[in-house]
């Protein structure tokens, strides 16, 4: 496979606001339990269906940290095939969580490349590539949204 040629700042500016990927994601119990296991979280809300139902949920729910997982809100991972970026690091993100997500829900996740900016750093020009995501459940309710950025150097 030929090595990808990163887009220039001008090429990124041209694509900003125009690139988006929409994915459907079925939330399964095993997904929630594995996620909880990876972060060592034994909370019954994420592991015990009867307990979660007793708290008013339809099934076990996803931990709040699940919203930060790449499958949910790494627009970069999802958009990467359409926008070669070269070397970069995660430069932070923020997540608004409006409603719980339970096993059995089907989410429509939208990943967008929204903006690109440049600033002079001590070791050269830094480029910040900004992404937004939204997550809507099968009832049409917005359950969460995120903004995050990647720094290219």
């Amino acid at each position, binding site marked *: 496979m030929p090595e990808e040629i990163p887009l220039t700042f001008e090429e990124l500016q041209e694509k900003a606001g125009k690139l988006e990927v929409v994915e459907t994601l079925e939330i399964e119990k095993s*997904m929630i339990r*594995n*996620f909880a*296991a*990876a*972060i*060592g*979280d*034994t*909370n*019954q*809300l994420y592991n015990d269906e009867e307990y979660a139902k007793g*708290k008013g949920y339809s099934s076990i729910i996803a*931990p*709040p*940290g*699940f*919203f*930060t*997982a*790449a*499958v949910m809100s*790494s627009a970069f*991972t999802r958009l990467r095939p359409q926008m070669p970026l070269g070397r970069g*690091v*995660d*430069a*932070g*993100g*923020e*997540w*608004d*969580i*409006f409603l*719980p997500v339970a096993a059995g829900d089907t989410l429509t996740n939208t990943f967008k490349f929204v903006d690109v900016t440049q600033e002079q750093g001590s070791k050269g020009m830094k480029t910040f590539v900004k992404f937004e995501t939204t997550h809507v459940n099968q009832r049409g309710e917005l359950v969460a949204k995120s903004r995050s950025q990647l720094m290219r150097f």
Partner: protein
Amino acid sequence: MPHHQVFFEDVNEGDEITPLKQKISKKDLVIYAVTASDLYELHYDKDTATAQGFKDVIVHGRLKSALLARAVSDWMGNDGKITKLTCNNRGADFPGDEFTVKGMVTRKSQESRGNLVELDVWGENPEGKKTTFGTAVAALPTKG
């Protein structure tokens, strides 16, 4: 696993949350990679990590953000809800090390969205260096 509950009335600005200490194993990183769909080799292939100048594979930044959220959830109990989370990674953490999450309440407010507390939360490596910075907003129940 929280069986306790923190109520809005119990909390004061400046309160510290119960620290969360979590030793993250390589196995945790593999489970996380698959479940979160974050398959970048830097997190499970040592050759990739050493080629980039790291001594070993590094913990996913987003896994650490999930641990910041977990520390807040563990502290407040299951009737509290995190409504906002921010996270910024400033340093690498390695499997086998104990990652400690600490936090402090910075603001309390009663709003139409609920009885909210804002917190600064951060993660420290075994040397006590802060590698991960975040904030959280949580809605807490009231006693009334």
